[in-house]
C-alpha cells in the first residue's frame, strides 16, 4: 500500500536559472540540480559536507597523496540499463581532460593527467598525479559536478541533454531548457536509502529563488533549495521545515596594501572595526551565518578560539583614521558584481564606513561575465598585478569583493590568496610574518603544530587586515511539511534524511 501511495507523489522543487545546457562538459552553475539528479559520481558529498561512498566504495591515497586508488562497485547501472564499469570511469575523466571537448570542469582536475588514469582491474582505478594532492578525492566528488560518470563513448556536449544517460538516483523523463525537468525515480539505484520516497521529481526553474516563494506558499512548489535566510525565516514553521548546509567559503573583501588609499593598515583595520557583524548576521541574514574574524582559518577545527573576535568599535576606528592622517575619512570605490548577498553586504560596508566618514561608492557589474570575473574559480585567465586600481577587475581593484567556495582544508586559500606570491592574492600584502606562518602551516604535521600555525596566521591577519571576512554563510533549503525527510547537499542534490525510511 505504501508503494501505491508513493506512486502518486510528485516532488516539485525550484531550480536555479540554467546558464547553459545541462551537459557534463558544458555545464555552468544553473544546471547543477539537473546533473545532481541524474548523475552518479565516484564520491558523494553529503549535506553535512562529508564524503560518502558512491560509485567508489573505497579510496586510498598513497605516496603521500600522489597516487590515489579507487575501488568501484559493480552493481551500478546507467539509465539505459548497461552496467557501469571501470572503463566508463576512465573514459569520463579522460574525456574532460581532452582539450577538444572544451570541458568546463577540466581546470578543476588539478594535477591529474590523462595518462595518469589507469584501469587496474574491473574494480580498481588508479590516479597517478603529477604532484602531491592530499585533497584529490574532493576533486572527483560530486562537488565537481561536471564529473558525473558517463557511459564510455558518449559525448558530454549538448547532445547529452536529450538522454541524460547517467547512473544517478533520478531518470530524466522530460527536459525543457529554462523551464522544467521531470524525473522519475531510478528503481535500479544502488543505494535506496539515499532516495526520498516520491516517484516523480520536477525541477522548475525560477529567475531567482525569491521569485519561487509565492509558488511555494500556494503549494505549486514543495521545496526551494538555497534560500536567503531571512526569507526562509519568514516562511511559517507550521507549514515548512528548513534544512541547512554550513559552508566555509563566502565573501572575501580585499583591500590593496600596495597602492591606493588603503595602504595604511590602520585604515584597513578601521574599516574592519566599523562592521557590526553580529547585528548584520542576525538582522540581514536571519542568523544563517557564523561570525568570521577576517581570516580563512576561523571555520576549521584547527582555529585558535582565543584570538579576540573583532567587534564594532567606532571610537577606535576614528582614532585609527586620525592616526593614519585621514581623520575625516575619504572616498573609495568598492567593486564586485551584482548578486543579492553581495548587494546587501556592500550596502552594509557602505553604511558602516559612513559612520567614520569614509564615503564608499559601490560599483557592481550587472552582467553574467561580472560573476565569472569576481569569482575565484574564474575560468578566464586573470591578469595579475595590474598596478592601476579600480579597473573593474578583481585582481586590480583597490577595494573589492570576491567569492570563494568552501574548501575542505584552508590550504588553497592560503597558498593562492594569502601568500604574498600567491597567484590570486588580490590584496598584494607582503608581510613576512604572515608568509612565515603560512609556510609553517603547510609543513605542519601534528595537530599542535597546525594549531600554532593557525593562531599565527589568525593574528597576522588581524594585524594587517588584507582581507575582511565577516561571516561564513549557512545555506538554507525550505521544504513543505507535506513532503517529509528531504534535504539537499551543497550542489542541490536531493537526499533523503532517512527519517522517513
Amino acid at each position: 500500500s505504501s508503494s501505491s501511495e508513493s506512486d502518486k507523489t510528485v516532488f516539485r522543487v525550484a531550480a536555479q536559472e540554467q546558464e547553459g545546457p545541462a551537459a557534463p562538459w558544458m555545464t555552468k552553475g544553473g544546471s547543477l540540480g539537473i546533473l545532481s539528479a541524474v548523475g552518479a559520481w565516484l564520491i558523494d558529498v553529503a549535506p553535512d559536507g562529508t564524503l560518502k561512498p558512491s560509485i567508489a566504495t573505497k579510496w586510498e591515497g598513497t605516496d603521500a597523496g600522489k597516487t590515489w586508488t579507487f575501488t568501484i562497485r559493480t552493481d551500478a547501472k546507467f539509465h539505459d540499463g548497461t552496467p557501469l564499469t571501470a572503463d566508463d570511469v576512465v573514459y569520463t575523466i579522460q574525456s574532460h581532460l581532452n582539450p577538444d571537448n572544451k570541458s568546463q570542469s577540466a581546470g578543476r582536475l588539478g594535477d591529474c593527467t590523462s595518462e595518469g588514469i589507469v584501469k587496474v582491474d574491473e574494480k580498481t582505478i588508479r590516479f597517478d598525479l603529477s604532484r602531491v594532492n592530499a585533497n584529490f578525492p574532493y576533486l572527483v566528488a560530486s562537488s565537481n559536478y561536471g564529473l558525473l560518470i558517463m557511459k564510455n563513448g558518449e559525448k558530454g556536449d549538448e547532445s547529452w541533454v536529450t538522454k541524460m544517460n547517467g547512473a544517478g538516483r533520478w531518470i530524466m523523463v522530460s527536459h525543457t531548457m529554462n523551464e522544467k525537468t521531470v524525473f522519475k525515480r531510478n528503481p535500479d539505484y544502488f543505494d535506496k536509502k539515499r532516495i526520498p520516497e516520491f516517484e516523480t521529481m520536477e525541477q522548475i526553474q525560477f529567475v531567482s529563488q525569491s521569485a519561487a516563494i509565492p509558488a511555494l506558499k500556494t503549494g505549486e512548489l514543495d521545496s526551494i533549495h538555497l534560500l536567503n535566510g531571512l526569507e526562509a525565516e519568514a516562511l511559517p514553521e507550521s507549514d515548512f521545515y528548513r534544512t541547512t548546509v554550513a559552508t566555509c567559503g563566502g565573501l572575501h573583501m580585499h583591500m590593496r596594501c600596495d597602492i591606493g588609499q588603503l595602504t595604511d593598515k590602520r585604515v584597513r583595520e578601521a574599516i574592519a572595526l566599523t562592521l557590526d557583524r553580529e547585528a548584520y548576521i542576525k538582522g540581514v541574514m536571519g542568523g544563517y551565518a557564523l561570525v568570521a574574524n577576517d581570516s580563512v582559518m576561523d571555520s576549521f577545527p584547527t582555529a585558535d578560539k582565543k584570538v579576540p573576535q573583532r567587534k564594532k568599535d567606532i571610537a577606535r576606528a576614528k582614532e585609527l583614521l586620525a592616526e593614519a592622517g585621514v581623520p575625516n575619512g575619504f572616498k573609495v570605490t568598492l567593486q564586485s558584481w551584482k548578486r543579492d548577498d553581495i548587494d546587501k553586504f556592500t550596502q552594509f560596508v557602505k553604511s558602516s564606513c559612513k559612520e567614520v566618514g569614509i564615503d564608499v561608492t559601490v560599483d557592481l557589474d550587472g552582467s553574467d561575465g561580472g560573476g565569472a570575473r569576481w569569482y575565484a574559480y574564474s575560468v578566464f585567465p586573470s591578469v595579475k598585478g595590474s598596478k592601476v586600481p579600480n579597473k573593474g577587475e578583481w585582481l586590480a581593484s583597490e577595494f573589492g569583493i570576491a567569492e570563494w567556495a568552501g574548501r575542505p582544508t584552508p590550504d588553497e586559500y592560503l597558498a593562492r590568496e594569502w601568500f604574498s606570491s600567491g597567484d590570486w592574492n588580490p590584496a598584494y600584502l607582503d608581510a613576512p610574518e604572515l608568509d612565515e606562518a603560512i609556510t609553517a602551516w603547510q609543513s605542519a604535521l601534528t595537530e599542535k603544530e597546525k594549531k600554532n600555525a593557525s593562531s599565527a596566521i589568525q593574528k597576522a591577519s588581524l594585524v594587517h587586515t588584507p582581507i575582511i571576512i565577516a561571516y561564513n554563510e549557512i545555506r538554507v533549503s525550505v521544504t513543505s511539511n507535506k513532503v517529509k525527510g528531504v534535504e539537499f547537499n551543497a550542489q542541490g542534490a536531493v537526499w533523503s534524511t532517512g527519517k522517513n525510511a
Partner: protein
Amino acid sequence: MTDETSKQTKQTELSERLALLKKNKAFIIGASILAFWVFSAIFGKLVARYDQDFADYESISSSPSLKYWFGTDSSGRDVYSRVIIGSRIIIVISFLATLLGAFIGASLGLAAGYLKGRFDMVLMRILEAISAIPVIIIALLAVAAIGRASSIITILIIGLIFTPNVARTVRAAVLGESELEYVAAAKLRTEKTAHILFREVLPNVLPTLIVEFTVRLGYAIFAVATLSFLGAGLEAGSPDWGTQVADTWSLIFSKIWWPTLFPSLAIASVAVSINLISDALLEVFEL
C-alpha cells in the same frame, strides 16, 4: 470701441480658464503631489529622517512604526527616507531625458516638416525604425552594448528613444503650419529658412510641444522605473524607486510588503500626478 471689448473678452477668457483650472480637482491633486515630489527632490535631505545608507541592524525589515514611518528594508534602512531621497533620481533623470528628447525631436521635426522631400522621407524612415523597437528593449540593448548601466546612459537612451515621437508630433504640426499662409507671407518678405522655422513656425507648434513634453515626461518616469527594476537603469545600490522595488518585491510573499509598497506608490503617484496635470491642461485649454 467694440475692439476694446474683444480685447477684454480675451483677457477674461484667460482668467476664466485659470479659474476653471483652480476648480479642477484632478489638477489640484496632481499639482500638489508633483509639488511635494519636486520639493523632496530639491530638499530631500531636509525631509528625510535618516541618511539614505543608514542601516539599523536591530530592526531589519521592521514594519512601519513611529521610528520608521514606512518601516525598514531587509538591510535595515529607513524606507521613508530612501523613498524621499530617491525622488531626486527619478525626477531629474526623467526630466533631463525628456528635455533631451524634446530638443532633438523638435529640431528634427521642424526640419522634416518644413523641408519635406527626401530629407523628410529618409528621416521618417529612420525614426519609424527606431520606434519599432520598444523603449525598454532598445535601452536594454544599449546597456548590454555599452557594458554597464548608469544614469547618464539612461538619460541619453531615453532621450534618444523619445526623439521619434516628439519629432513626429512636431512634424505633423509643422506640416499643418507650413501650409498656412503666414509662411508664404514670410517668404514674400525674403525671410531665410532658419528664420521661418524658428521665429515663425516654432512658436506656433510650442503648445503642441509642451503637451507632448508632459506626456513624454510621464512615460519617462515609467521607463526609468522599469529599467531600474530590470537592473539596467542605474548604478547599483542607488536609492531610486525602481531599484528598491526590484530589491525587495520578493519579500512581499513573506508579508514584508512595506519596502515594496512605498516606492511603488511613489512611482505611481508621480506618474499619475503628471498625467492628471497634462489631462487637466488639455481639458481646460481645449487642446
